[in-house]
């Protein structure tokens, strides 16, 4: 278990370092001239040169990367060009807001998705299964911002039952905050449901087909007991892994959702940074998103290993 954990963390660190290179190249090498890309094609060459000197972007790429990454390792992500504030501070606040929204979406979608998948598997091939599988897939295929405008239109304006901005007034209690976050969370739930249900369905179908299930049925256990004790226990394992991989996808979904609902989370911060060509803020945000994703998958691997003795005792999946 210890070695498994060390190996996993080591791999995550390598991935993270590669990610930092990719992000840095995308932000500071691809545009060529950073100041030029901020000021636009009409700015005078002297202005561009002056801004490059001020931002430190007149130095060589290697020096800049070294400078940036050594700061990142010490937890210093630099200062935002546009807002003149430390990037880590800005991301910290936004991350907390996004986490609240993501948590609400997960709390809603995980039981729903698992329930849908298990029901579909128990009625495999019949109408209920087709409805959940094809319906879930279709609902997932529609981009979040399309759901967001639909949700605002139906619940926020035509029925007028829920607020159309996601941020509750300052000092609101938990319930008010949840009320404000309900519509954006609903959009995330719609997009995540299909994948989760599909995984839960696949796991359940496999477990229903397994020898131990047949043995349990043949030795005369009631169907209920077989499903609860033999099928579900084994079926939910792969679903746990999927829940975590969806974290990355969830963050992608947050970008558009937070913009539509004007919610000050990581997604809106990212779009703002991109709009303003605020490269330190952009790099920091993307890197933090990568860290969150890797942490989530790491936790999922650990949970999976803990629940699955074959992995725990040095099996194939490690």
């Amino acid at each position, binding site marked *: 278990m210890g070695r498994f954990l060390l190996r996993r963390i080591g791999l995550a660190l390598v991935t993270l370092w590669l*990610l930092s290179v*990719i992000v840095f190249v*995308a932000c500071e090498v691809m545009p060529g001239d950073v100041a030029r890309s901020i000021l636009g094609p009409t700015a005078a060459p002297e202005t561009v040169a002056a801004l490059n000197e001020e931002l430190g972007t007149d130095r060589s790429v290697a020096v800049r990367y070294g400078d940036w990454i050594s700061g990142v390792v010490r937890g210093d992500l630099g200062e935002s060009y546009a807002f003149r504030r430390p990037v880590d501070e800005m991301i910290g606040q936004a991350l907390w807001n996004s986490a609240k929204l993501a948590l609400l979406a997960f709390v809603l979608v995980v039981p729903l998705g698992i329930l849908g998948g298990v029901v579909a598997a128990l009625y495999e091939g019949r109408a209920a299964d087709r409805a959940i599988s094809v319906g879930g897939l279709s609902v997932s295929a*529609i981009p979040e911002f399309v759901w967001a405008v639909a949700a605002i239109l139906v619940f926020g304006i035509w029925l007028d039952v829920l607020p*159309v901005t996601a941020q509750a007034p300052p000092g609101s209690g938990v319930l008010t905050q949840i009320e404000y976050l309900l519509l954006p969370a609903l959009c995330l739930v719609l997009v995540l449901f299909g994948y989760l249900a*599909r995984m839960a369905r696949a796991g359940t179908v496999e477990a229903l087909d397994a020898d131990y299930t047949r043995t349990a049925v043949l030795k005369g256990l009631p169907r209920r007991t077989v499903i609860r004790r033999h099928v579900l226990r084994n079926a939910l394992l792969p679903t746990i892994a999927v829940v975590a991989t969806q974290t990355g996808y969830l963050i992608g979904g947050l*970008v558009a959702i937070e913009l539509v609902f004007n919610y000050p989370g990581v997604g809106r911060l990212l779009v703002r940074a*991109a709009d303003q060509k605020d490269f330190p803020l952009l790099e920091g945000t993307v890197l933090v998103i*990568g860290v969150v994703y890797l942490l989530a998958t790491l936790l999922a691997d650990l949970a999976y290993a803990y629940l699955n003795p074959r992995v725990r005792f040095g099996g194939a999946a490690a």
Partner: protein
Amino acid sequence: MTTVDDLAPVVVHDSGRESRRERLRVVLRSKTFLAGAVVVGIWIFCAVFGPLVVPHDPYADDILGKLQPPSTEHWFGTDRLGRDVFSRVVVGARDILLVAPLAALLGTVLGTALGLVTGYFRGLTDDVIMRVVDAFLAIPVVVIGLVALTAVGPSRVTVVLVIGIVFTPIIARTVRAAVLAERDLEYVEAARLRNERAPYVLGGEILPNVLGPVLVEFTVRIGYAIFAIATLSFLGFGIQPPAPDWGLQIFENYGLLSAGDWWPTLFPALAIATLVVGVNLIADGLTQAFER
């Protein structure tokens, strides 16, 4: 969004023309496939012939007639510049149906090449490339697309390039899994013993046998490409004004929702929804046929 596919890689063995014909029959009998094909077919018709059949010029402003609700003159109403929403929705099919499949195609070609090489050679090349792939996969497609398009500047060409390149590692993973299942089979062994060179073994022997999963992956990726490009356009980093692109139309008009002007937002939203669902039904039909 990506790892879901990896958990259950589709690996099929093709046994000649007979099974291919059988598979085609299965696909054509599938109701989901046919429903998807009809919807996508309508949008393709709009993309090709749209400009010839629409009642108004999709680019013509009419500031005095802005934000008119749907009527017999303007079926879907007019937007904030007085442009006819119906004409813009019909002609708007063109951008997304050109850009998204091209991006998916680029990603499939590059990803298949990468997957063949890494799956066949294994070893250090494989390890290094797969780590880079993992790093790419740690970031949602929309986020990395946003960063890259900020750097290179958004246009139709850069959107195709960026989405194509972002899809490459994802497709490479699927193809790699399929190649791993093939590389130790006897026909590959035989080719190697004949002293065939690696490019021939990869392109002439293994590739034809993994075409099934590649085709399924390509169709699924078109759906994801529409999803990603529509989202990027909505964020303002995809297709640029004044194009009648659907995501861009929603971006330009969704602020008017709370004022009650729903038509310039709702109709392009419905267009995106029907197109992605159609493409996904087609992909679902193909997947089912190939998994048999």
